[in-house]
């Protein structure tokens, strides 16, 4: 039962073939069986999940079902606040932090009757591409447990790939949904900036952060997005545009669709086998009737720098709230002679891991006197050009296809001491966030490493609020590729 997609499970729930309790217990047994190997979860909410599943079944019996995903068990990245449940961002400085409110996304899921299974692992504060920056543990890739699942939403991606949930919520600031989705062989959707409320999500870089689904199928991604998208008065950056029924747009054929392939994304540096998978995928999409055109996004080469200047700048500001005074890890003690400065310095020195320190320092540096103009201001201007590249391209094409990651999943430890190599692994995903456009990673094929199949995804990018277009293309491709039918052996 744990193998079901959300769409399949909701049909079975509706027809009474299964109950939410059966489904939830099946998943919980699956977690017991495989999570000791995968380490996708930081916390499994067994009792709460069983309680919520029984409530859902009662509602169904009474004819009071809340939505089409009532009773569906999902996992939540531990960057989203959950009321009365510890929320850590996988960081020591927030260990033991228990919010007294739900993030808007969590509340919307609960209001739709979703069963929350637990909180998934991530790189601490979502800083990373492998989950190795988690202060608690590294999640393993279900396809090869000596490799990373990607990150930062690596726990969510691995949980979906290993059938430890029917779907999961992740966050994406520079690829944190799409890259782990690609490396784990699942679907990951980064919506338009402001399409989903950030309220109650521990902030990383507020002008880039987006919340979205990781799922087994594109249809499931559409179903989750329908529930979580929309204006929220608690997040002033959310968009007022009506939320379409995304799952209704999937069936259209691709005839007449114009899809751009930007030459800047196919330069040297990409793994050859990955490149073949991406190119074959583009051919398949062409065979479906779409017209493939070569395009240029001329400022792509600068986007990585823009991202790694703006993002740490915003990180340094957002993470200044962890001060050891109000909440979180602290050296402050009653009746000890301490000064404020010392409490800050020691609490933060002990509480932050290496990557958080690196990003805070980088951000502090590019914002500091003498460097603001040379780095930050310049990056803000190039951001305009990166965004303009996409706007120009979307005057000609309906969507853009690129690779997601230059390599398949890399080995645990391979890049963990080399931030530059780690940052370069984000090269195809980071240009998207500064432009605010939506993008989806959908499984496209496999490459073989050490006699193991490793998944490779493609990225389909749309114009702002173009989620329907990219979900449609991704779904039509998924139907002919059949890649997501294959499951990892754990």
């Amino acid at each position, binding site marked *: 039962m744990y193998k079901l997609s959300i769409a399949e499970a909701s049909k079975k729930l509706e027809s009474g073939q299964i109950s939410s309790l059966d489904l939830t217990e099946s998943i919980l047994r699956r977690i017991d069986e495989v999570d000791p190997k995968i380490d996708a979860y930081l916390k499994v909410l067994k009792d709460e999940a069983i309680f919520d599943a029984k409530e859902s079944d009662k509602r169904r019996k009474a004819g009071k079902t809340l939505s089409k995903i009532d009773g569906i068990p999902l996992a939540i990245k531990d960057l989203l606040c959950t*009321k009365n449940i510890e929320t850590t961002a996988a960081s020591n400085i927030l260990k033991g932090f*228990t919010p*007294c*409110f739900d993030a808007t996304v969590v*509340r919307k899921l609960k209001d739709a009757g979703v069963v929350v299974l637990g909180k998934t692992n991530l790189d601490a504060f979502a800083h990373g591409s492998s989950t190795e920056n988690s202060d608690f543990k590294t999640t393993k890739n279900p396809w090869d447990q000596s490799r990373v699942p990607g990150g930062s939403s690596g726990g969510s991606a691995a949980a979906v790939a290993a059938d430890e949930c029917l779907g999961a919520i992740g966050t994406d600031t520079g690829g944190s949904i799409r890259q782990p989705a690609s490396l784990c062989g699942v679907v990951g959707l980064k919506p*338009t*900036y402001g399409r989903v409320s950030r309220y109650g999500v521990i902030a990383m870089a507020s*002008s880039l952060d987006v919340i979205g689904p990781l799922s087994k199928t594109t249809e499931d991604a559409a179903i989750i997005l329908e529930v979580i998208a929309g204006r929220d*008065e*608690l997040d*002033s*950056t959310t*968009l007022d545009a009506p939320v379409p029924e995304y799952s209704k747009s999937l069936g259209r054929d691709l005839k007449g669709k114009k899809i751009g392939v930007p030459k800047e994304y196919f330069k040297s540096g990409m793994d050859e086998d990955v490149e073949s998978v991406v190119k074959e995928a583009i051919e398949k999409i062409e065979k479906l009737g779409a017209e493939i055109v070569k395009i240029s996004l001329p400022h792509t*080469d*600068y986007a990585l*720098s*823009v991202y790694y*200047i703006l993002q740490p700048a915003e990180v*340094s500001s957002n993470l*200044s709230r962890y001060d050891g*005074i*109000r909440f*979180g890890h602290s050296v*402050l*003690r*009653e009746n000890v002679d*301490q*000064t*404020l*400065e*010392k409490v*800050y*310095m*020691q609490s*933060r*020195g002990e509480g932050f891991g290496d990557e958080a*320190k*690196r990003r*805070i*320092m*980088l951000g*502090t*540096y590019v914002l*500091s006197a003498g460097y603001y103009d040379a780095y930050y201001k*310049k990056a*803000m*201007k*190039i*951001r*305009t*050009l990166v*965004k303009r590249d996409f706007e120009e391209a979307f005057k000609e094409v309906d969507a853009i296809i690129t690779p997601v990651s230059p390599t398949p999943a890399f080995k645990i430890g391979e890049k963990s001491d*080399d*931030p*530059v190599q780690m*940052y370069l692994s984000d090269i195809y995903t980071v240009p998207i966030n*500064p*432009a*605010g456009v939506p993008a989806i990673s959908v499984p496209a094929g496999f490459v073989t490493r050490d006699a193991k199949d490793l998944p490779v995804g493609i990225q389909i990018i749309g114009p*702002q609020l173009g989620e329907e277009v990219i979900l449609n293309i991704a779904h039509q491709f998924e139907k002919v590729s059949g890649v997501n039918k294959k499951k990892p052996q754990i």
Partner: protein
Amino acid sequence: MLTKEEVLHVAKLAKFDLSEAEVEKFRLQLSNVLDLFKKIDDVELKDIEETSQVTGLKNVLRNDEVVCKKDLTCCTTEELLKGTPIKDGNSIKVPKVIGGTDDV
């Protein structure tokens, strides 16, 4: 290449202690990352405006009043202070701000 003094200065601005080993490690790693950024100097930026907000929203305002919707934003003072290290009734106790040996 960043100097040790620059690293210590940034850590002080960022308000955290670094061990000797961390200073050296971050000096090298951050210098390598800053090297990546050199290429942005090639871009012609005359008359280009900065972008901080990408979806075109402007001045989203609300009334300045406490809104309590469902149980979403309505934490009690007690709940809010649950994780606070030292408090005095409903107040957060803060150590002395001036007078220490490490004033800056």
